[in-house]
C-alpha cells in the first residue's frame, strides 16, 4: 500500500513542478494555483504513505536510507508550503519541486538495509540530519533564487521574470533563517554521530564531508554576524555547503557497510 502512495505523491510533485515551470514562462494564476494544489495533494498522499509505513513497521524504516530520504522530501515540501502560504513564492516552487523529486526517486532506489544500531541516539542522529538537510535544501533553493534576482538587479537588466520574482531581502531573510535552523540541526547531527563514531572508532569520507559542510555553514553564519557578510558571497557559500551535504549523502549510500559508520 505504501509504494502506490509514494508513486502517487511523486507524480503530484512532478506535475506541481510542471505547473510552477509553466508559471515561470507565463505567470497565470491558474498555474500557480494548480502548482500549490498539486503540491498539497502530493504532500497529503505522501503523509498517508508515511503514516501507513509507520503503522505497518513502526519508526524503524525512517532511520533507514530510503525511509529517511522520503521523510526528508516530505519535510522539504511542507516547509516550502508553509513559506508559500505565508507569502506566495511560486518561483521557489519551481526550484523546490524538482529537488523533492530528486530526493524521492533515490529513496526507492537505495537498498533498504537495516540499521546496525537502534535506540534513541540513532533516532535523534538521523532525525536531526533529516530536518537539517531539509532546511539546507530550502535555503539552497532560496540562495539560487537570490543569486538569480540579484544578478538581474545588479546588472540593471530585469528580464521578463523580474516581475514574478520576490524581493531580494525577503529571499535573503528566508535563506538566512533556514541556514541557521539547518546549522543547529547539522551541529546536533554531528555531535550525535561523533558520539556513535567514538563507539565504533570509524571516520570516513562522509563524516569528513559533514565536518567541511559544518565549517562552511559556520563561516557563513560567523561572517554574517561578525562582519555583516550577506548577499552574493553568503549565497555562494550556502550553495557550496549544500553540495557538501549532498556529498555526505552520496558517501552514506555508497558505503558498503551502512551500519558500520554509525
Amino acid at each position, binding site marked *: 500500500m505504501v509504494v502506490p502512495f509514494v508513486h502517487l505523491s511523486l507524480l503530484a510533485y512532478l506535475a506541481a513542478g510542471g505547473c510552477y515551470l509553466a508559471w515561470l514562462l507565463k505567470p497565470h494564476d491558474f498555474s500557480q494555483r494548480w502548482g500549490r494544489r498539486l503540491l498539497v495533494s502530493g504532500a497529503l498522499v505522501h503523509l498517508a504513505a508515511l503514516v501507513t509505513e509507520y503503522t505497518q513497521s513502526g519508526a524503524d524504516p525512517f532511520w533507514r536510507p530510503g525511509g529517511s530520504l522520503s521523510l526528508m522530501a516530505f519535510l522539504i515540501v511542507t516547509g516550502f508550503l508553509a513559506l508559500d502560504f505565508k507569502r506566495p513564492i511560486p518561483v521557489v516552487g519551481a526550484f523546490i519541486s524538482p529537488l523533492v523529486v530528486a530526493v524521492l526517486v533515490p529513496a526507492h532506489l537505495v537498498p533498504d538495509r537495516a540499521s546496525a544500531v537502534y535506540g534513541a541516539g540513532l533516532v535523534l542522529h538521523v532525525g536531526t540530519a533529516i530536518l537539517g538537510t531539509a532546511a539546507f535544501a530550502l535555503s539552497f533553493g532560496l540562495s539560487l533564487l537570490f543569486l538569480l534576482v540579484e544578478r538581474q538587479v545588479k546588472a*540593471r537588466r530585469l528580464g521578463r521574470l523580474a516581475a514574478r*520574482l520576490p*524581493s531580494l531581502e525577503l529571499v535573503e531573510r528566508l535563506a538566512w533563517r533556514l541556514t541557521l535552523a539547518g546549522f543547529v540541526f547539522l551541529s546536533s547531527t554531528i555531535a550525535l554521530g561523533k558520539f556513535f563514531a567514538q563507539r565504533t572508532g570509524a571516520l570516513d569520507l562522509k563524516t569528513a564531508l559533514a565536518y567541511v559542510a559544518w565549517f562552511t555553514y559556520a563561516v557563513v553564519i560567523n561572517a554574517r554576524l561578525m*562582519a555583516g557578510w550577506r*548577499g552574493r558571497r553568503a549565497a555562494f557559500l550556502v550553495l557550496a555547503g549544500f553540495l557538501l551535504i549532498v556529498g555526505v549523502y552520496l558517501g552514506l549510500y555508497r558505503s558498503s557497510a551502512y551500519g558500520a559508520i554509525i
Partner: protein
Amino acid sequence: MTSLVVVGLSHRTAPIALREQVAAGESGAAELVGAARQISGVREVAIVATCNRLEIYVVADEPAAAANDLRALLARDREDVTRALYAHTGEAALRHFFRVASALDSMVVGEPQITGQVKDGFRRAREAGASGSQLERVLARALFAAKRVRGETALSEGLVSIASVAVDLTRKIFGDLEGRTGLLVGAGEMGSAAARALKAAGVQRLWVVNRSYERAQALAAKVGGEPAQESALPALIEVADVALCATAAPGFVLGYDLVAAAAKARRYRPLFLLDLALPRDIDPRVNLLENTYLYNIDDLDQVAAAGRNLRADEARKAEALAASEVAAFLRDAQVRAGAKVLAELRARAAEIAKHEAERTLRHAGPLTEEQTASIQAMAQAIVAKLLHAPAQALRAEAEALGEAGPLAEMAARLFALAPDDAQKPTLVPTSPPKKEVA
C-alpha cells in the same frame, strides 16, 4: 514662408554621458534662447530642457537655414554632439512637438512630468520675450493633445513615471517599504516626484538634503520629509535604505569613497541609489560595491521598457490621437486662412449694424431698455441673415481647398478687406482649438 523648426537631442539619440555634457541649466537655456534669437530669420524661440532632452523650437522664415544654424549652435563643433542631433521642420516638427508634449517620446511613455517641463520652457521663453503668438498657439494645441492622450487612453496607468519605476525597483530590493528610510538629495523635479511616491508607498522617514537648508525645509514640507544639513549627508547615507539624487551639481555628490565607507559602516545592508540628475550625481563605480545597487536615468529607461511593451496598445492609440491633433491643427491653420476673410467680413458687417442701430436710436427719442435692445438685435439679425449664405460658401471652399480660394479673394475685393493677410496660410489657428470627434 514661416515654419516651425526643432533641433535637439534626446535619450533616443544620445547616451547619458553625452547629454550631461550639453545639458542646459536655467542660465544655459537663457543663453541658448538669446543666441538662437540672433539667427537670421528666426522670429520666435523656446527651449525644452529636461534630463532626457534638450530641444530648441523656433519659428523661422527660412526653416532649412535656421535648422543648420541651430545645429551649429548646439554642436559647437563637436562631432559626437552633431551625430546625436536631429532636426525637423514644418509638419514633422509639429508632429515631434506634439509627441513630446504628450509624453509619447519620453523615456517612460505616458509620464506626467513632461507637460510641466514643456510649459516651464515656454514660460521662460515668454518671460524673456522670445516666444510669440505662433509658438504660443502651437503650445496651446500641443497641450490640448496631451490632455486628450491622458484622458482618452490608459497610457498613464500602471508603471509609467520615473517615480513609479523607482518605487517598483525599491520594492524589488526591499519588498515591503513600511518602516524603511529614504534620503532625497537635491531639488530636481523627478527626484521630488520619486520621493513623494516612496513616501506614499510606505517609506517611514525621508530626509531631505539641499545645499541651502531653507530650500531643504521647503522641499521637505512638500514631500513629507525631514530637512537635514548638507554636512549630515555621509551619516545619512549610512542609515538610509534608498537614496535619490537630483541636484544640479556639476560633479559627483556621492563619490565612490563616501559610499564605500558608508557601505562598510552599514555592514553591507542593501543600499539602493537612484541617480536622477544630469550631469550624474553618483559615481557609477559604486554599483561594484557589495549589496549596493545604483540606477541612473538610462537604467530606469530599460526598466520602463517593459512597461512600454505592456502598454503598446495604449501607446498606439495615443500616437493616433496625437497625429489626429497635428492634422487638425494644420487643417485649422489652413482653414482659418480662408475663414479669416469671413471673420473680417462679419466683423465689418457687425460694426456697420451697430453703428446704424445707434444712429437710429439717437433719432428715435426716449425708448425703454427693451425697445433699445430689440432694435440692436434686429440690426444684427439682418446682417447675420444676409451673410449666412456667403459665409457658408466661404467656409465650404476653405474646407474643400484647405486654403483661401477664389471666393475668398473675391469677397475680400468686394468688401475691401485685407486680401494679402487673409490669404496667407499661417502656422497656427486664430481661434481656440475645438475637440475633434474621434
